[in-house]
């Protein structure tokens, strides 16, 4: 086989049992022209250095496991072509998350924020399956559908300047998910979620950086979700002043 072009990969390494702080390690390998960044990382793990740890699974941009910072930008490595990069590619774990090992980050905080927006259908009275499916028009579906496309890859958290500074900020994906349910015509829980948005979720810390939407690999547009949510949360609060809510929240 004729020789393939070589690229140099500078990859963050961190083993808490051995390293005080993360360091980098450099690998030079031949790369096929149609490779994605993930293919190169897998090649390094399989053939060069089996001690490199990273997360991946579907390799088709739908499971959300393989998010990393590549040349300073958060990317889904299974979707990002190596051809976009020159001879040197820097691969780091996702920004703004504590680093567990090499390219693996701790995202328990995200799971907490995710759950805190009550991401499920809230109805006063559960519908029985015998009653059939809820009626929902294509227009009602369109209202929230693209916000439901989030694969939880957390690239938006790696890009967000507010996440970098404010630990209590709910963050783009969590807010977008809560908003998705608020917009779903089958849901009745907007009041509860809006209270969370106004309160501990601090969604008003978002200051329109729009970085989240720039990096989202699924075009969820979380910036749109957050800013729509702000308006609706305020309107909900104003309505609450004029028309007191029945019962507790």
């Amino acid at each position: 086989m004729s020789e393939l072009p070589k690229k140099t990969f500078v990859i963050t390494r961190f083993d808490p049992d051995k390293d005080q702080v993360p360091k980098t390690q450099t690998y030079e390998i031949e790369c096929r022209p149609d490779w994605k960044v993930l293919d190169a990382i897998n090649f390094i793990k399989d053939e060069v250095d089996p001690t490199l740890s990273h997360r991946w699974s579907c390799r088709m941009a739908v499971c959300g496991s393989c998010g990393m910072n590549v040349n300073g930008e958060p990317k889904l490595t299974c979707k990002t072509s190596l051809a976009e990069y020159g001879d040197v590619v820097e691969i780091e774990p996702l920004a703004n998350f504590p680093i567990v090992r090499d390219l693996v980050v701790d995202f328990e905080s995200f799971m907490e924020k995710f759950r805190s927006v009550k991401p499920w259908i809230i109805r006063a009275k559960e519908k029985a399956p015998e009653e059939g499916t809820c009626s929902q028009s294509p227009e009602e579906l369109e209202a929230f559908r693209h916000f439901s496309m989030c694969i939880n890859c957390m690239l938006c958290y790696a890009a967000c300047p507010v996440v970098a500074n404010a630990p209590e900020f709910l963050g783009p994906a969590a807010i977008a998910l809560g908003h998705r349910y608020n917009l779903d015509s089958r849901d009745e829980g907007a009041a509860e979620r809006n209270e969370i948005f106004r309160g501990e979720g601090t969604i008003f810390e978002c200051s329109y950086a729009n970085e989240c939407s720039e990096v989202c690999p699924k075009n969820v547009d979380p910036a749109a979700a957050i800013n729509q949510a702000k308006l609706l949360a305020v309107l909900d609060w104003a309505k609450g002043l004029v028309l007191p809510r029945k019962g507790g929240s």
Partner: protein
Amino acid sequence: MLEVVRHDVLIVGGGGAGLRAAIAAVEADPRISVGLVSKVYPMRSHTVSAEGGAAAVARDDDSLEMHAKDTVKGSDFLADQDVVDYFVQEAARELTLLEHWGCPFSREPDGRVSVRAFGGMAAKRTWFAADKIGFHMLHTLFQHSMRFDRIVRYDEQFVTRLLVDGGAVRGVAALDVREGVVRVFLGRAVILTTGGAGKCFAFTTNGNIKTGDGMALAYRAGVPLKDMEFVQYHPTGLPGTGILITEAARGEGGTLKNSEGERFLVTRDYGVGQKAELGPRDMISRAIIQEMMAGRGIKGPYGEYVHLDLTHLGEKKIDERLPFVRLLSTTYAGVDPVHQPIPIRPVVHYMMGGVDVDIDGRTLLPGLYAAGETACVSLNGANRLGSNSLTECLVFGARTGRHAVAYARGASDGDESRLRALGQEEAARIDALRGSRRGGERLAGIRHDMQHTMEQGCGVYREQPSMQETVRTLAQIRRRYAALALDDRSKVFNTELIAALELGNMLDVAEAVANAAVARKESRGAHTCFDFPKRNDQEYLHHSLVWFGEAGPRVDKKAVTITRFQPEERKY
């Protein structure tokens, strides 16, 4: 000191079937607690990649009888018909529940859920959400499961052993991927929902995590694996990567063409009749391979392929109903389906076979259950119809969850000190394996050789000499596996260790597949042999069973439940 975690029911694997089982379990009994143990966070489960849809009777021009008949015929009469009857009856109820829980199904203008045509189905009954049903179903189930405090998740815990005491399963031992320690999880019932094992093959739609872990756990614990020879080759995967292009592309009108631009499923007789591109998957895959063998395949850098043509559908329809297909084709094949046909070839996708269970998900080992792709109930027999498996995860995930709870209520706990001792043994075994140098074999090399030999011997078309060669090669590879040289000694997030454990599981599953394949000297459903080209109901109208043995696997048989639909010639 070994940590012990206690729950009433343990579920291993957090995909469609596992999550549905967990929800059913806590709904069945307000007091029980469920431990959901998964080697990945649940939203990474491979259910997420399913694209086409989930089947259930939904329209007036359809009936349960028709759905059952399609399923049994599609299975080449190897499906257990009592299972099929229950399945078609519960299907719509389960999908309706999913819709109530928020799944964003695509809609008709009148507000009803839309249905599309799918392979081998006589009526439109596949409920869909654009072309990302698996993604939406998994996320809906996962988010809905978060309502229940009694479903406790243990993410990134790799179950390495079932703990059996007093003749029943009492729990599992699991390696914490992050911390590198082994813990004992005690549960009076354990449900295996770990998915299939496509990664035993070189070319597969499956993600990295599909390594047959649950199948191997059951197999090693003395539970037979059923119908393992039936491996589904999905007709349309992208060459090179193997990424799935959903059957829905054909359901919406896509056509298959060979190198001469000929729509070969129509112009030549491949047994699919009028259904053409919407024939059952095994027949379409065979047709494509035959076209390639006849020299009418198109040559490419990753082997031969044929064309899936969507250009006549128009951009609007593609963006509305197949947007993910367009993205995948553009990103991974460099082809925009609006303007050019997509290159595709048959690819390993699904295992019809799995852990031998009855209709309640019960194995012969008390306390051990299985559901979803891990299990073989058998709903799918020798060939699965597209869009039946997502519904299967819901229907049998739910039923198994309920039955596991009923069993757990009446079951006893087993001797904890003995179980701890087993856990301790397991911890020692794992610690000894981590970073060990038992010989000079490289992990990636062994895995590659296993995948290669499975590809050779257990392809779309098989024959005795190559299957037997695969059996021999796998035995050799097992010996090489015992001489593995590992590099990573670290405890924290050691993915090399996980890969080594997964490889062990894959070798078990591969051995079962290859041995079952050799033993079935007929062609049925997805198991097609050059040397035994006909279906032989006289001698082979039965399920195969493979039992683990130290000296090598033992192949056995099990009767098929046939009620309403007598086996007949499978023509479309």
